[in-house]
């Protein structure tokens, strides 16, 4: 009996741990599909986390907290967007700068709030569904944001598979010049995609400080923004694989804690590497077919677009 409980708990925690990663990676997938590489994910996460936390602490409303985190993420991404899309700054350098800026800004703004508690988002068990053995507890006894992340995954999958909007994003990311030549709005599409990425990163930040561990600590994203960036590439820009990778990472993260708890005598630093290694290994194996990858990779990724006049 105890083993089943353990499995239930591990799976539930794996989904929770994977959720912020999933949110960030989904947003970045959309931005990259449009041809824009935003390396500022970590910065947007942290700013979303601190802004969401302060808002909820001040107003007492989790809803306002998440909304504020979303807006903060969008503002950060638009700062990036104007630099790389309007002023054609180098996307790599600008993204790195955004991360450094966000890390510093969040530490500065949040300095007075370290260690203060808020009441985090509570799980809502969905009747019937949460009673399904093994996966019921993991998938249907979670907080609202986890359910929303399911919805977001499904919606994006549908968006790229069967909507005109998805087609436009893919076209702009593959060849902005061709897209422009047939009259598609290249820059507006890229702005929207980058803003969506910012919104998702902001909300993911909010999830960290308002649900996952309801408190603010400096640098609390702990590299998740970077993992998400790697995830997008190794998932070959495919929504379903992004989700798989995020939960895999979540599972591996939890397993190494469990392993420590069970008293495996293994150097803890090596164990802490496990989630990163496992996630990358699996996705590398999945993405080892170059011919198929070519169909999903946005060809113009990272390249500025100059409209001729």
């Amino acid at each position, binding site marked *: 009996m105890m083993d089943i409980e353990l499995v239930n708990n591990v799976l539930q925690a794996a989904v929770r741990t994977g959720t912020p990663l999933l949110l960030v990676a989904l947003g970045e997938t959309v931005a990259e599909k449009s041809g824009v590489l935003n390396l500022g994910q970590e910065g947007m996460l942290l700013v979303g986390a601190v802004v969401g936390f302060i808002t909820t602490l001040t107003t007492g409303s989790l809803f306002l907290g998440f909304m504020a985190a979303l807006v903060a993420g969008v503002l950060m991404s638009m700062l990036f967007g104007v630099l790389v899309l309007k002023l054609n700054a180098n996307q790599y350098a600008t993204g790195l700068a955004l991360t450094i800026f966000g890390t510093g800004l969040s530490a500065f703004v949040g300095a007075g709030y370290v260690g203060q508690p808020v009441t985090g988002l509570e799980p809502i068990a969905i009747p019937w569904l949460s009673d399904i053995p093994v996966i019921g507890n993991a998938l249907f006894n979670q907080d609202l944001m986890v359910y929303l992340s399911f919805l977001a995954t499904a919606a994006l999958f549908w968006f790229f598979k*069967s*909507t*005109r909007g998805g*087609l*436009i994003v*893919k*076209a702009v990311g*593959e*060849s902005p*010049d*061709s*897209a*422009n*030549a*047939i*009259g*598609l709005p290249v820059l507006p599409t890229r702005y929207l995609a980058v803003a969506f990425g910012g919104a998702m990163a902001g909300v993911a930040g909010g999830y960290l400080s308002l649900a996952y561990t309801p408190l603010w600590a400096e640098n609390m994203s702990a590299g998740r923004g970077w993992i998400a960036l790697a995830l997008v590439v190794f998932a070959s820009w495919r929504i379903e694989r992004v989700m798989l990778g995020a939960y895999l990472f979540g599972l591996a993260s939890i397993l190494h804690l469990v392993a420590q708890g069970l008293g495996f005598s293994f150097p803890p630093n090596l164990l802490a590497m496990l989630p990163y290694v496992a996630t990358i290994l699996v996705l590398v194996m999945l993405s080892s077919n*170059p*011919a198929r990858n*070519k*169909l*999903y990779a946005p*060809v113009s990724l990272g390249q500025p677009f100059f409209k*001729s*006049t």
Partner: protein
Amino acid sequence: MNSDSKLEDLPVASAQGGLPMPSRLALRGITKQYPGCLANDRVDLDIKPGQIHALLGENGAGKSTLMKIIYGLVKPDRGQLYWRGNPMQIADPSHARSLGIGMVFQHFSLFETLSVTENIALALGTPAREMKTLSRKIADVSRKYGMTLNPERLVHTLSIGERQRVEIVRCLVQDIKLLILDEPTSVLTPQEVDTLFVTLRQLAEEGCSILFISHKLNEVQALCDGATVLRGGRVSGSCNPQAETPSSMARMMVGDDTPIATEYVKVEGGAPFLTIHGLNKSTHDPFGTHLKNLQLQVRSGEIVGVAGVAGNGQEELLAALSGEEPVREGDCIRLGDQAIGHLPPDQRRRLGVAFVPEERLGRGAVPTMSLRDNGLLTGFLQGLVQNGMVQTQKTEAFARSIIDRFKVKAGGTHSQAKSLSGGNLQKFIIGREILQNPKLLIAAHPTWGVDIGAAVAIHEALIQLRDQGAAILVVSEDIDELFQISDRICAICHGELSPLRATAHTTIEQVGRWMAGDFVEDAA
């Protein structure tokens, strides 16, 4: 019964007659200035309904800019466009399309990872729920105009000719009044060109006007009933191609002081020098072509031409010949009786092989380096380097002699390679190789994107090198060029080589069939 007067009457009557037919499209005084270049200078143009009108001109004459203006991609500085008699400002391509103007680009504006239907839907603004209807319409239209297309195929699986059909069908599924085609035949085999012309004539009969941009004069003559010639951004003449000869139209394109193509004497050549025997090569690039059991022989003192549509293995063949990708069985490629297939490029150069690669900037020359340094890059065997030190004066003299002998228009030996026009840089690169007196010259697309004057100069230099006894292999997509300069000719298709025949004993039609993979020989 005088057929001549009839031909004369047609164009003049419509221009001077009492009741002028309203033009489908009329341009008046279109001017577009780019920094350092007047792309269009007071250009006038008239296209009648149902007319197939040619826009002729050399590279850089302003054809591309003009058609981008018509299609709403570029805004003119001055001048007025009239659409069916009314003044019109075309805001962007979607506006142009809503008027019934369609365009087929030279470099296709297609998305390789999407299907045919998706590509067309993107341009039309079709909502996702109507994709099925659109697929059916695409199939109908392509059948009606004799251009077979499967709407569900992904574009990257299509051949170049099929991709062009997608571009054309994309224009035809809407109500089209004016179809603009930018150099549409440059990527097609002669047979595909014939099929395209049938489609275009059918369209014109249905009342669609066609603007046909080209520099291939015999095609213009075969297809068009009106032509406007641009030179240096200005209209240098308009004519009825039916009443002109290709050389009189070429004169309008290049002006009076440029020599135009002549015929060269065909020769037999001497002993076999380059021998390719059973060359097989597989590629790791998923979109590349495998080479299959190639056989080819180039004699000293002859030019062998390899025709073919791009992407049929030319790149792989050239990489194997230059040594960029050596082959394991070195014996497959021999110079005289020495196996060289396994040697890297510099060792092959030491044996007297010279290369003119396809890309001028990036492989033929380093864009940001001076002509002098670019000369050194392959001329290092000419005593320009001693004990590891660059001999500055000799290098300078070498670059200077290339510039002088091949009349390269450049600021000097210090000019950056990228500052030269395509034709001038190509003259420099070819000159650099020729001055080293190679025993074998391998030239890829030697006059691609080069104007007529420079092309003639390049051809003459190649003929001269041949007459000095060098073996020359030319790989080109321009079949007219190959017929002009090659002594023997073959074609490459899907990584296989056709038989090699004396150019004088074959026809463009036969080589066209080779280019399409039909290697069966005609009954002689």
